[in-house]
Every structure is written in structure tokens, then in C-alpha cells.
């Protein structure tokens, strides 16, 4: 930041916060392209393209039928218009739906066979595809033996997956979804679309028809996954949509922590990304799903950037199962994303922690759904939205207590911060209570700082500003701490922001 700072800031807003947000938007670090020879399916979308994608992935017949069924449904559907995001109509015929590096035509048997140019891409992103102890760039990790397995997806294909063998020893299956369709078709067939049905919504339906690759995770009964799993998505080719599909199955009593990261080159045109993530948690299983979404956000004038339309849903099928979504959303021109939990099992739990930052012309409409079906189910929602420039940031959430969800509990807290007078911050909660033993509390306040805590700090001799900083910091950490360490480091760099003087 030079001296000529154009942003007017009212008193009480921390200057550092403003600069951090500006710095975030100013320099998109991952805006470069990888120059590899690509192979595209013809532009546009029709049944032949769907067939072609299925064929390229070498899929069984039932999978193709499922895709075609989705495609036919999609043609009858409307693009959603209820979110607070505005963009020119998307021409779905003016996109490529399949793009893969030529070198991936014959699937490499191991990482050693992968085109070095692709490996360099991930190295440059800080995600070297080597079976090393920890992700590069994470300094001072407490435990040097921590391991993270990575599945790297480049446009429409998975480039490679690390630590597969070590995971296999524990019984964990971690591979691309195309491999899973080949090697474990019965599992895919049983669970695919069982959490997000084909026609769930326009974008999920499109994804069901044309998804190209994505990750597949299966954690067997009683297994605590020996390392964190992660998928890194990279959009590289121009005019190409990315449609990945992730399926995570956690059997009884299992545990897994899964991380997802994404980036894209800097271009003047918008690119479409419509992903689906399905999670099935059976009895006593626990899944942590963490995302740092850093797609290219477009420039200051709103040229370019990713249109990010994502459906993520977890089905807590088993009693006492638990799913935790944590997201740090900083990228994309348009974000439309509501990671949700269906709390079907008795005593199951859902949690959602989110920090969404929108700057310049970015628009984010994001939140969660907590659908309480089982008895004694619990959910917790903590959402922080930060808007700057001309950005619009909306929290949209649903908490639904069904008649049989006796003694269910929900607590929701949404806070928003506006930096400058040209942006917007919005809160759109839907609260549906259909039984009287359920207790729901929703709060969205500007007084981010709890008066009691503030009073306590001041009583101990802190001045007001110090007290506010301490309390706010503590609260922001609550979200950041929900992230696994590797991501927490990255997220902290993205979000090292104080929420002083914020507005709700």
C-alpha cells in the first residue's frame, strides 16, 4: 500500500485490516498459466459430450445412464435466481466441458511417469506431489511426522494421488473418482447421488451430467485415517469449466480430516466451476472437511474471475456421527455455496465455520443448511463476512427442526464487517421450527464484542481498544482453529485481519 490510499475508513476500523484486505485483492499469487498441450472435447454441451466424458473416463454403462438422466433433467431446470449475486447470463454452449493434458492420455502408473511440467505446476503452488512428511511452506509444524496425502486435479483429470499405498495398508481408499469407478464401482454406485440427488439444483444437476474427475475417499469401519487427505484443484485451460465430484464415505466409528484447495489463472473472461461434494457419515463416524477457496477473483473492475457454484452436503446417517465444515472463502468473482448437514442420526452433530472475504467487484452468497431430523441433534454455525470495495457479501442459512428432532439444538452467530461505504453485507437466515423441544438461537449483531467479556477485560486494567482486540481476536481464532494446521497457516495469511470496528 502506498500513501495514496483511496479507501475512506471510518474511525475505529483498524488500518491494518484495510491494508490486509486490499493486499489480498491486489496481488493474486496464483494467476499464472501452465503451458502444456491440452486435449479438449468439442465446445458446447449435449448428450454426445456427456457420452464422450463417460467414455474418456472408461466408465461402466450404468454411470453413463445416470449422467444422461441428469442431463435430461437439467434441460428442464431453471438457473437459480434467488441469491444476491448478479452476473450476465451464462452461455452453457460456449464452454469446454472436458480438457486434459495430452500427456495424461495414458494414465501414468505412478507419479514418476507424470509430465514434469504438471508436477512443477503443483510445486509452484506449494503442493509438491511427493510423498514427503508435510506440505512445503509450513514452517514450525509442531509434529514433523505429520503426513498429508494429496490428490491433484488439473482441469478435468486427476494427475496423481500420493501415499496411496500407505493409506491402503490402513484400509483407506483415496483415489480419483474415475479410478474408484473402475476399481470400486459397487461403492460408488451405492453412494453417488445419495446425498445430492441428480436434480437437487441446477448446478448440481449440471455437475451430475458432466463431472469429469474428483476425489473418492472410503474409510473402513473403526479406522482413524492415519493422515490428513487433501485435494488440490487447479483450473488451467481457457473457456473450460471444472466440474469435479467428491465422494467421502466414513464407515462406523471412523475418522477423517479432509482438505481442499483451489486456484486458477488470471484471465479476462469468466470461468465456470460447478462442483459437488457428498459426504456420508455412518454411526459414530467423524468427518472434518476444510476448504481454502482461492479461485481467481477477477480484477478490480470485475473483469474475469471464476463463477463458483458449488453444492456440498453431508448426510449424518448414523447415530452420533459428526461432520464439521470449515471454509475460508477469499476467491472467485461469484460464490454460490452452502455446505450443509442432514442430521439424520440421533445425537448427530453438524458444525459450520466460515470466513468469507469479498473485495472489489466480488460477490459471495454463502452459508449453510442444518436439517435436523434425528433426536437430540446439535448444530452450530459461526459465520464471518468481510466486504470491501464494491463487493457484496451475503450469509444465507437455513436451520430446520423437524417434528421428530426432539431436544435438538442450534446456535447461529453471523457477523459482518464493511470496509468503505460502497460495499454491502447481508444476512438471510431461514429458521423453521416444527417441534417445541427444539431450541434455536440466531444472532447477527454488530456489537461483535460480548459486553461481559469486554467488561471483564477492562476490569483487569486493559483499555477499551486492547480489550476489543483481544476478544475479537479470540473469536476469529475460533474459526481459524477449526482448520487443520496446514490450512490454518495459509488461512491466517489470507485472513490475518482484525475485526475491530466491524458492522453487522
Amino acid at each position: 500500500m502506498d500513501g495514496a490510499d483511496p479507501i475512506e475508513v471510518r474511525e475505529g476500523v483498524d488500518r491494518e485490516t484495510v491494508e490486509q484486505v486490499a493486499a489480498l485483492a491486489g496481488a493474486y499469487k496464483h494467476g499464472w498459466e501452465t503451458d502444456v498441450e491440452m486435449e479438449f472435447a468439442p465446445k458446447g454441451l449435449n448428450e454426445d459430450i456427456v457420452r464422450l466424458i463417460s467414455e474418456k473416463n472408461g466408465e461402466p454403462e450404468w454411470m453413463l445412464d445416470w449422467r444422461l438422466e441428469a442431463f435430461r433433467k437439467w434441460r428442464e431446470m431453471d438457473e437459480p435466481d434467488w441469491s444476491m449475486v448478479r452476473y450476465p447470463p451464462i452461455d452453457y454452449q460456449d464452454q469446454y466441458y472436458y480438457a486434459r493434458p495430452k500427456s495424461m492420455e495414458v494414465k501414468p502408473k505412478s507419479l514418476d511417469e507424470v509430465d514434469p511440467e504438471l508436477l512443477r505446476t503443483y510445486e509452484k503452488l506449494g503442493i509438491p506431489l511427493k510423498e514427503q512428511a508435510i506440505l512445503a511452506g509450513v514452517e514450525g509444524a509442531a509434529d514433523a511426522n505429520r503426513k498429508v496425502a494429496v490428490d491433484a486435479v488439473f482441469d478435468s483429470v486427476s494427475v496423481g494421488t500420493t501415499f496411496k499405498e500407505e493409506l491402503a495398508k490402513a484400509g483407506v481408499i483415496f483415489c480419483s473418482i474415475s479410478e474408484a469407478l473402475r476399481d470400486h464401482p459397487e461403492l460408488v454406485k451405492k453412494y453417488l447421488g445419495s446425498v445430492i440427488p441428480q436434480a437437487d439444483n441446477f448446478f448440481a444437476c449440471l455437475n451430475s451430467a458432466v463431472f469429469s474427475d474428483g476425489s473418492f475417499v472410503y474409510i473402513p469401519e473403526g479406522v482413524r485415517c492415519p493422515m490428513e487427505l487433501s485435494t488440490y484443484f487447479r483450473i488451467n485451460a481457457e473457456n473450460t469449466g471444472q466440474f469435479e465430484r467428491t465422494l467421502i464415505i466414513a464407515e462406523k466409528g471412523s475418522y477423517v480430516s479432509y482438505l481442499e484447495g483451489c486456484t486458477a489463472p488470471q484471465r479476462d473472461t469468466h470461468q465456470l466451476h460447478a462442483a459437488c461434494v457428498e459426504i456420508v457419515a455412518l454411526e459414530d463416524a467423524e468427518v472434518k472437511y476444510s476448504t481454502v477457496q482461492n479461485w481467481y477473483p477477477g480484477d478490480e473492475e470485475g473483469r474475469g474471475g471464476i463463477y463458483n457454484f458449488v453444492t456440498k452436503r453431508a448426510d449424518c446417517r448414523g447415530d452420533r456421527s459428526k461432520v464439521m465444515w470449515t471454509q475460508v472463502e477469499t476467491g472467485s468473482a461469484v460464490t454460490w455455496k452452502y455446505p450443509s448437514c442432514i442430521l439424520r442420526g440421533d445425537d448427530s452433530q453438524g458444525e459450520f465455520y466460515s470466513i468469507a472475504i469479498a473485495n472489489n467487484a466480488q460477490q459471495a452468497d454463502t452459508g449453510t443448511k442444518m436439517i435436523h431430523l434425528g433426536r437430540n441433534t446439535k448444530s452450530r454455525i459461526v459465520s464471518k463476512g468481510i466486504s470491501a470495495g464494491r463487493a457484496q457479501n451475503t450469509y444465507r442459512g437455513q436451520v430446520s427442526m423437524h417434528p421428530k428432532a426432539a431436544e435438538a439444538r442450534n446456535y447461529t452467530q453471523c457477523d459482518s464487517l464493511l470496509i468503505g461505504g460502497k460495499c454491502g453485507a447481508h444476512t438471510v437466515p431461514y429458521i423453521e421450527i416444527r417441534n417445541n423441544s427444539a431450541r434455536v438461537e440466531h444472532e447477527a449483531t454488530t456489537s461483535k464484542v460480548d459486553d461481559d467479556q469486554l467488561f471483564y477485560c477492562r476490569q483487569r486494567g486493559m483499555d477499551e481498544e486492547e480489550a476489543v482486540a483481544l476478544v475479537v481476536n479470540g473469536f476469529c481464532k475460533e474459526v481459524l482453529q477449526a482448520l487443520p494446521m496446514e490450512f490454518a497457516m495459509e488461512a491466517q495469511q489470507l485472513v490475518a485481519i482484525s475485526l475491530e470496528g466491524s458492522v453487522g
Partner: protein
Amino acid sequence: MAANPGTPVGLNPNGRRARNAKAKRDATEARLAPLSPPEGPVWAADARAEALERVRAMGLPARSDEYWRYTDPSTLTGQGAPSAAPLGGDEGQVFGEVDALRIVFVDGVFDPGASGDLTVEGVEIARLADAADIHWARGLYGALEAAGQDPVDRPLAAFNTAFATDGVLIRATGRAARPIHLVYRHEDATSDAVLHHVVRVEEGAEVTVLETGPAAARFNKCLEVDVADRAAFHHVRAQGRDHDRRAATAMFARLGAEATYKSFTLTVNGVLTRNEHVVELSGDDAVAHVAGAAVGDGATGRFHHDDTVFVTHDAERCESRQVFKKVLRNGARGVFQGKILVREGAQKTDGYQISQSLLLDDDSQFLAKPELEIYADDVVCSHGSTSGAIDGTALFYLRSRGVPAEDAADLLTLAFLAEALEEIDDDALAADLRDRLAEWLTRRR
């Protein structure tokens, strides 16, 4: 595109949205076909013609509309009112002790015999049906309703402007000597009443409007209130407790600088009630409080109560409060859709919104959508929404002190409603309504 014409770009011609839009157009035209505009002054005829165009353009509400997500409008929009037996009895007694000008409508028809002379010191009063062609309400009738159509369609209010048979035009030029009490009697089991009132409170003036009674089997009422700088408008309403009546009411208010607007509504029973409130704070330092208490027992018919409130801050240092409480039992359904919109430049806004429900048994439902939409960075806005059963600990405490279980439950229920009743400035009016609530609780045991 030609290769694949069925693929959506923008609106899908094969999609549900296109089908819904067509169904809505057809239903609206069918509803409007047999209707003709009522008689009245020339200026009203012009405003009605414009309102009719608005209805046509928007279409009457349908369940597929986001704004009618939780309330089925079909019996409010359909041809003819579903039958509703008048309860009779003590309805007329609410605010019976208050010294006020009573203006009585029976099933939407003015009753001159039961009404007082339309004179109150500091106020000019006329009826819409026989207002002069040169009148202060010209240019105001339907104007706030029209302005309130953005950003959300309110077609039932536009329908009201187009077809209201009567209403009261109230212009306060000073401090009104006594309140104006609009009494709505319901006698005919199939009456379908449409009334439209306009209130203009001139600079520095002050007036109180009371409304009581069930009005009709189906009642569509619109009240436009234009509050000038430093003027004050007070409104207290008790919607009649006929079990089967239906009502769609809309209040549109515009506030000048340092103006005050306070409205409270008590709803007891009624099979279907939709109360919309649209308030625009357009002068600096204005204050608007909108509150409501609803108690409903699903077993006496059904009970569905919907409070839909939209407060827009378009000036600096304004304050708004929304306080809505509901007590629901036996499958009663309560809806709250509230919104605070703070426009760019409306700095130092203080916006507050709370919606709470007490569910007295397992079958009742509370559906809420409390929204904030904020485009200014120096504001304090908060909203909260809670729902739950009577606090078992509090109940136990009272019982341990010798209070019988039923009395204890009533006491806690009244305490829950108190925050909304406190929004009424006039203690006598508040006390009258508190007695009504206590009676309701006792009757329901």
C-alpha cells in the same frame, strides 16, 4: 445455440419458472375479469387504474413466490371469501373505555348510525367513498403503496388500491384532541371487504389511530401513512378473534425528519392473517417502532399468522425497532419475515429486530426469515430470533412457591409477551390489551 435449443441460458422456457409465471398470469386475469372499479372521486379513479396495471404486471401472489414461502395465499386471492361465522359477543368492547371518535364499518360498509360525527379538533376527516374531487388525499392515495412495491411485489396491496370500496382519509394539522378508533364489525359469514385508509400527519402534528374487530369473513385492508417532519403517528390495533376470518393487511409509512411512527398489533385467533408493514425512513433522525403479539390456538379452527415487515433506512441517524412475539399451541403456525434495509449513505443507523416464539406444545410451528441488507458502513444493526418451549426451571420455581401449574404457565406466557406490549406508549391501551391476553389464556385452559 441452434444445435441444442433446449439448453438453458437465463430463463429456461421449459423450466418451472416459466410455467409458474404463466399460471400466475392466467389466475390473475381470471380473478380480475368479473371486477369493476368502485365509484368515488376522480383522482381515486386515476390511482385505481394505475394500481390495476400494477396488479396485472406483478400477478396475484402464488405459493411459488419467495415472499409467500411460508403462507399459502390461495384463499386470500381466490374468487369469493371462504365462509367464516361471526363470533359476536364482546368484540366491540376493546378500547371501549377510551374517549375516541368511533368510525364503524360493518362487513366493510360504513355504518353512520354507529359512528360519531367525523370531527376531531386538529384533524380533517373524510370518507374515501364521498371525498371531494379537490382533496388533500389526491396524489397520496396509492402513492405509498406504489412506492412500497420495490424491491418486493405486494400485489394484494395494489389490488386493494384498485378495488377498495371505502376507507377513511385522515389529515392531522395539529395535535389531535382524541384518538380515531376504526371499529370493524363482522356480521355476514361470506363478506369480502376491501378498505383503504390514508393518513397524512402534517409537520409537527400528532394523531393516534386505533383499529379493532374482525371486519369480515375476508378482509383486505391497506393503510397509507405519510408522517411529515417532526410529526408523530401512533397506531394500536387488536385484530378480532373470530376463528375463521381471514385478513391480508398492509401498512405503508413514510417518515420525514425527526418524525415518529409507532405501531402495535395484537392478534388473537383468525384462521389466516398476513400483516405486512412497509416503513421508509426518509428524513434524518426519524424513529419507527413496529411491534406485534400474536396468540393462536390451532384447535379452534386452524391458526396461521404471518408478520412480514420491511424497514428501509434512507437517511442518517434513524432508529428502527421490530419486536414480534408469538405464542402458539395445538398446531398453530407463526411466520415472521422481517427485513432491515440500510441504503448507501444511511449512516449512524440504529436498527433492531427480534422475533420470538413460544411453542406451548409439540405440534406448533414457527417459521422465520429475519433479514439484514446493509450498504452503509457506520451502522448498528442487530437481529435475533429464538424459539422454544416454556422454561422448565422457571415453571418449577413458580410451582415451588405455591403457584398452581396452569397459573404459572400463564404468568410466564404473559411475561414472554410483555416485551412486545411495552412498545405501546399509552398505558391504558396497553393494560386493556394485557387483560385480553390474560382472558385468552384462561379461556384456552
